[in-house]
């Protein structure tokens, strides 16, 4: 659910009765521009209200910046493979320099949604990294952040894996082996296909929604210009006709303001949720990549284990003195293989749960967005009708002969 200020973690209890139900409520507020020129950035106040024992006290306020949120997302992505990590708003190198009011507000809203989704996810909300993010002072946060920059964020095992990946790819190509193994699960195939095509459809819808915001702004501008011109024309004409023009011009300018307002409303409550939907789908794609990797690892280790077993049997047969060593290696590899299989199966299980959650969440997210959209458009149209209608009685009076 997209809420602007706070969310409740699974329970519908109000935070004012802290004793019974556990709750964790977070809000991201008060964007402040700090720094100068190229190094300028925005800082946000993150307010946490909770009664959970793991947290330091009922309320905590910290200052965070965008890269802190990125750190949190990356840590969660690493640790919780199989879960669709809530998406972050884009980095946007260009708009950062302009830091328009709209951009800042959109980002703040998106970050607020991000943290709240984490805080209401049954698994993610228990994360230690989340606690670090919500509670540690700025210096600790900065240190944590700088530890994770670039390639150094990968553990040695991960580095080896990357190396092995490259190696196997090369050997596959050289040896003319087939493509890396993929799951042959028809349901999952269907899901993959669904996700990829969904992204296309959503991207198109979001593009049009963004354009619609622009159109509202443009129409607002042209109504303002038209109103001004009509007023001048009225001044030129004089008498009751001039007054009629003048009134028309005034209404036109009034409507211009309403259109600009609606443009903003559309941007925040319709276009942004659509964009968020696209980002969520991209996050799912990342999870799918994790799953593919896990599957590949599982296959490869299973394959390697089998070979090792065959080798061991061979050695045992010829009573080689390398049996002990081989047995040890075999047992190790088998444990790794089982671990890889567990990891993969966990991802599969998590994904199945996540998909259900995702679909439900998106139905209510979009439902809200649609509601806001329709409400906004209806109100705008009614305002337009009212404004123009108010002119009619005066125009009727003008038509009766009075030069």
């Amino acid at each position, binding site marked *: 659910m997209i809420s602007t200020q706070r969310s409740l973690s699974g329970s519908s209890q109000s935070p004012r009765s802290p004793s019974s139900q556990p709750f964790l409520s977070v809000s991201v507020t008060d964007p402040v521009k700090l720094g100068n020129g190229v190094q300028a950035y925005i800082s946000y106040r993150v307010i946490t209200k909770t009664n959970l024992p793991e947290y330091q006290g009922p309320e905590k306020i910290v200052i965070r910046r965008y890269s802190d949120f990125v750190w949190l997302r990356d840590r969660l992505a690493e640790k919780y493979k199989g879960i669709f990590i809530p998406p972050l708003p884009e980095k946007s190198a260009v708009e950062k320099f302009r830091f328009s009011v709209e951009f800042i507000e959109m980002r703040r809203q998106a970050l607020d949604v991000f943290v709240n989704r984490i805080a209401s996810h049954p698994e993610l909300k228990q994360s230690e990294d989340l606690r670090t993010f919500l509670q540690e002072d700025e210096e600790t946060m900065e240190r944590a952040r700088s530890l994770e920059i670039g390639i150094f964020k990968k553990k040695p095992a991960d580095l080896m894996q990357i190396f092995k990946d490259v190696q196997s790819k090369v050997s596959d190509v050289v040896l003319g082996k087939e493509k890396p193994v993929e799951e042959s699960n028809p349901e999952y195939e269907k899901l993959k296909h669904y996700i990829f095509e969904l992204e296309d459809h959503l991207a198109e819808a979001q593009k049009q929604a963004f354009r619609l915001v622009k159109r509202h702004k443009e129409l607002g501008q042209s109504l303002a210009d038209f109103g001004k011109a009509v007023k001048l024309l009225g001044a030129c004409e004089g008498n009751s*006709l001039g007054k009629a023009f003048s009134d028309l011009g005034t209404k036109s300018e009034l409507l211009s303001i309403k259109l600009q307002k609606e443009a903003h409303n559309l941007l925040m409550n319709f276009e942004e949720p659509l964009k968020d939907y696209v980002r969520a789908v991209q996050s799912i794609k990342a999870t799918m990549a994790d799953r593919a990797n896990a599957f590949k690892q599982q296959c490869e280790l299973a394959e390697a284990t089998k070979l090792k077993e065959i080798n061991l049997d061979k050695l045992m047969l010829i009573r080689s003195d390398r049996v002990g060593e081989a047995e040890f290696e075999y047992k190790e590899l088998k444990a790794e293989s089982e671990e890889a299989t567990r990891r993969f199966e966990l991802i599969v299980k998590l994904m199945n749960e996540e998909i259900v959650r995702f679909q439900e969440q998106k139905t209510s997210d979009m*439902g809200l967005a649609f509601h806001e959209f329709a409400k906004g458009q209806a109100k705008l149209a009614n305002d337009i009708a009212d404004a123009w209608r108010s002119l009619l009685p005066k125009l009727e009076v003008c038509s009766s002969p009075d030069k």
Partner: protein
Amino acid sequence: MMGSENQQLLEEPHEEMENLALDGDDLSHAKSYSDYRSAMSSISESYHPLSSPRSSSPALNNNNNNTINNNSSSSSGYSDPLLSSSPSYRDLRKNPSVSDHAFLDPPSYADPFDEAAAAAAANGGSDGHDDAIDAGSESESFSSSAAEFLKISVSSPLKEQENSSNSLVPGGNTYVTYLIETRTNMPEFGAAAFGVRRRFRDVVTLADRLAEAYRGFFIPPRPDKNVVESQVMQKQEFVEQRRVALEKYLCRLAAHPVIRKSDELRVFLQVQGKLPLPVTTDVASRMLDGAVKLPRQLFGEQGSVVAPHEAVQPAKGGRDLLRIFKELKQAVVNDWSGARPAVVEEDKEFMEKKEKIQDLEQQLSTTSQQAEALVKAQQDMGETMGELGLAFIKLTKFETEEAVYNSQRIRAADTRSVATAAVKASRFYRESNAQTVKHLDTLHEYLGLMLAVHSAFSDRSSALLTVQTLSSELSSLHSRAEKLDAASSKIFGGDKSRVRKMEELRETIRVTEDAKSCALKEYERIKENNRNELERLDRERRDDFLSMLKGFVINQVGYAEKIANVWAKVAEEMSSYGKENI
């Protein structure tokens, strides 16, 4: 009498300079005006046939099978592509639902909404308004006597060949003719319905003859000449644009209370075959003719005196170079003399009116531009809303097909509601805009009329200049006569040649006095025309603008209400989502 006249006539310095310029002065204003017009029509044409309704008389539709007699060359193979544009366009206008279906390809499950939308379109009041506009175009609101009607339509452009052996390229000199059909009950025509074929050159001739005959009137400006290659001329789009422009022009002429009764118009509309109006010679040949005469004029031999009948015509369009120079000189004198004119009541009123008209023109121009921008913005809004709707339709179709979970099916249904509403709203925007274009067109019309006003005012100035020139001439003639008189009285008995000269001079003075009184009468006549036309302009402008405002407002209200209803329903359907947000 002379003195006060002189003072009175020393106003209006600058315009005379402009008017006597030998290049065509009608192009500069016309250009800017036509820029608006072409932009307007391209906006209204580019998206949807429905959004650019033409002001044509529906009674004379479908001219393919028209039995009205005309002596145009019967349809050659060329005519078909040109013909296909006009009638099919009008058919589209009569059947809005047909063309709507063609434009938007709805997926099969969206059929129920489509009927509703078509019904909504039919109820949109667009039909009713169409009729009003048709009636309007026939005799807008200018027509003084509602009982007399004069309906003109222009159609059936045909390529015809110039039968001359001049052309080096075989079959090279082609031009386009248009069928001009009239229906009327005015007695002057002596017939109820008739048609002729005319080419654009004939229209130019008509416009020129009217300008000469109706000085001081606000004569609607004719469509531009467009000096382009003959290849462009043959392009369907250009021909269609020109056809529309011609129709509008002729209808405006028909709506002018005085001009509709003119011989020139009648002859243009009715006389078969070659147009029996004198053709305007081009500036170059006129000047050449004048140059031939000039030397003799300067030596005082021939035609240096302005005859009375010539005095009622402006110097500019004629061949009398000497006269042109004299008036030019007078204009300069006016300009530099710096004498304060006496404040004469009537002229002061005119000057005020003129300033007001100039101010009005300025504001009209700005408003007209902003109106175009507004129309475009509304058009874009409708278009994007439609595209948004289509994107959602695709999304909902996709989700429905691929749905595994119930939440997906619910979401697909929600998305479909929004998609349907967006497509409906988009249609309403476009329909509303089609009407708005028609209403705000009044602004463009009056802006175009400003050209006619300028023309009428310059008729007045040039008539005034003629009077002033003749006055100066007279005064110099009189002083010559005095000198001659004084000189001859000193010589006893008189010189035979001097006596002869004196007689010639007196004759010249007499003729010039006659010319001046004709010119003065003409000036007064034009002033009167100006005055009446200004009154008519004020009256009709007020009515037209008020009805424009009313039409615009009513249309906006109507469609805004429709759009509000569409979205209110969707908001209602989705209201449960709103409440979940605690």
